[in-house]
């Protein structure tokens, strides 16, 4: 089969070839190939480790959820928009909290966007126009291995025709694999992104005098050189990663970077965009945004949606022990949350919907296996630049889709709650 769409990272490559006999995929990277390789699955629905039918597992899950005072519904980055839509409705009916993987990933960028807006562009515009690309705290060679080839490093575009016409700059705290293939690598001290964005803004606005001889481990001359390259770009792109959102400053770092781009846009054209991780983590934010107005950390306990990451993000809810049950869909918070948050997941009944066994499976009371979107099920996902792509079904399965499982849950919840 041709033009297979990959459901691993946010690049959502749509040019794979699937060999039905060998059950393997061509053209994709190591991450995409591992996605399409056969691997251990959750065999059947389970309650307390005992195999049951889908109906029994869903009945029990609904019993737990409707009796909970404030259930947490978390995950959503590796499933289709159709399932996310039902998840948000379910959170509303249950008076629970909806949160998604971005809250431990790119959500600080969402906060910055709320404050500043975002001068953005698609991956197509980066490929065709960007003559300067700055990877800031992002390492696509390990996290999005084909991003460079398809869009941002060696991609052959309409106006920027090849690697020679594109200057690639990496700003990071260590020499990453992406730094190795960059034209310029600027090594900064951890936690100094904000200060460096400020220094660049000062230089570009004609206030270089105010910048000390070194900022965040970078010499002033080097910063002046970078500012010059930025000013002289025809179309520049800052593609930032978790180096910016997960270190000191978080959302304020992104906000300052956006201000830098706004300043550059007085004389030339720049965009800034996050390098999103999971294939549909954009959907996990966009779908609730078009349903209830917010992207993450949404509480429905008062019957209407309230957004407050300090209160309703999954990590904060769990740290405060402020949920008494959890529905985890297409995610593994036990592996990816700080210890204190995992401690509470171990205390409360957890219901998991996922194709693969993971650390959350080990603490879950109810485990419901699901079909893999893009392989066993079709649906829609947003690529990292918000372009919706149709995920294909390649092979048949007996596993239910997330959409079907959630539809059945919702039907039962509506019986209890109206």
């Amino acid at each position, binding site marked *: 089969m041709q033009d297979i769409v990959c459901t691993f*990272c946010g690049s959502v490559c749509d040019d794979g070839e699937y060999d039905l006999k060998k059950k393997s995929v061509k053209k994709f990277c190591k991450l995409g190939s591992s996605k399409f390789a056969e*691997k251990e699955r959750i065999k059947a629905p389970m309650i307390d480790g005992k195999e049951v039918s889908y109906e029994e597992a869903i009945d029990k899950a609904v019993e737990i959820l409707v009796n909970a005072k404030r259930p947490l519904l978390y995950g959503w980055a590796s499933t289709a928009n159709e399932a996310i839509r039902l998840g948000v409705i379910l959170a509303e009916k249950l008076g629970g909290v909806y949160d998604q993987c971005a809250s431990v990933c790119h*959500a600080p960028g969402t906060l910055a966007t709320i404050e500043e807006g975002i001068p953005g562009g698609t991956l197509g515009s980066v490929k065709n126009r960007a003559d300067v690309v700055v990877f800031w705290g992002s390492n696509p060679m390990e996290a999005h291995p084909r991003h460079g080839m398809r869009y941002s490093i060696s991609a052959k575009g309409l106006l920027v025709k090849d690697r020679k016409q594109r200057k690639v700059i990496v700003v990071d*705290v*260590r020499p990453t694999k992406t730094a190795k293939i960059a034209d310029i690598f600027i090594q900064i001290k*951890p936690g100094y992104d904000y200060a460096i964005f400020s220094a660049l803004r000062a230089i570009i606005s004609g206030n270089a005098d105010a910048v000390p001889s070194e900022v965040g481990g970078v010499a002033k001359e080097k910063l002046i050189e970078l500012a010059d390259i930025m000013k002289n770009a025809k179309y520049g792109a800052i593609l930032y990663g978790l180096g910016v959102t997960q270190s000191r400053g978080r959302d304020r770092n992104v906000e300052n970077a956006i201000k830098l781009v706004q300043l550059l846009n007085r004389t030339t054209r720049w965009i800034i965009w996050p390098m999103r991780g999971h294939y549909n983590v954009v959907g996990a934010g966009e779908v609730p945004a078009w349903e209830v107005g917010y992207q993450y950390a949404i509480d429905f306990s008062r019957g209407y949606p309230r957004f407050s990451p300090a209160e309703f993000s999954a990590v904060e809810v769990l740290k405060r022990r402020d949920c008494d049950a959890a529905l985890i869909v297409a995610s593994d918070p036990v592996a990816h949350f700080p210890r204190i948050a995992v401690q509470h997941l171990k205390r409360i009944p957890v219901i998991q919907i996922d194709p693969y066994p993971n*650390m959350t499976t080990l603490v879950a009371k109810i485990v419901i296996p699901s079909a893999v979107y893009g392989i066993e099920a079709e649906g829609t996902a947003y690529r990292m630049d918000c372009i919706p792509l149709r995920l294909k079904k390649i092979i048949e399965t007996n596993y239910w889709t997330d959409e079907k499982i959630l539809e059945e849950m919702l039907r039962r919840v509506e019986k209890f709650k109206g």
Partner: protein
Amino acid sequence: MEIGGVMAVVVELITGRTLDQGATVEEKLTEEYFKAVSYIELNEEDFKQLNLKEGDRVKVTTDFGEVVVFAKKAELPKGIAFIPMGPYANMVIDPATDGTGMPQFKGIKAKIEKTEEKVKTIKELLEAI
């Protein structure tokens, strides 16, 4: 330097994705995933200072917890250490979110010392949480 009579180095710890972590992330209960996330990368000088050989174990201690992982030499600035994102890193990162919902996964002060303690399996680690 010696801290409390034990040879140790103090580093700034960062965590993040790697290709191997990504390629095994949907197989978390396998040996491959364990290998992909249960190590720390150290700068050569820090590595030497702790008198380490490749594959030795180190204890990583922060204000928020401790974890034993395998030690690897890597091209890193002196004083910076890296653990791939995952359950081992999450034992020692800073859970404070400053009101954003985002814990501080990068830039945490950590003490590294050689240890004879074993590296916990994924299941043992979960039990210890």
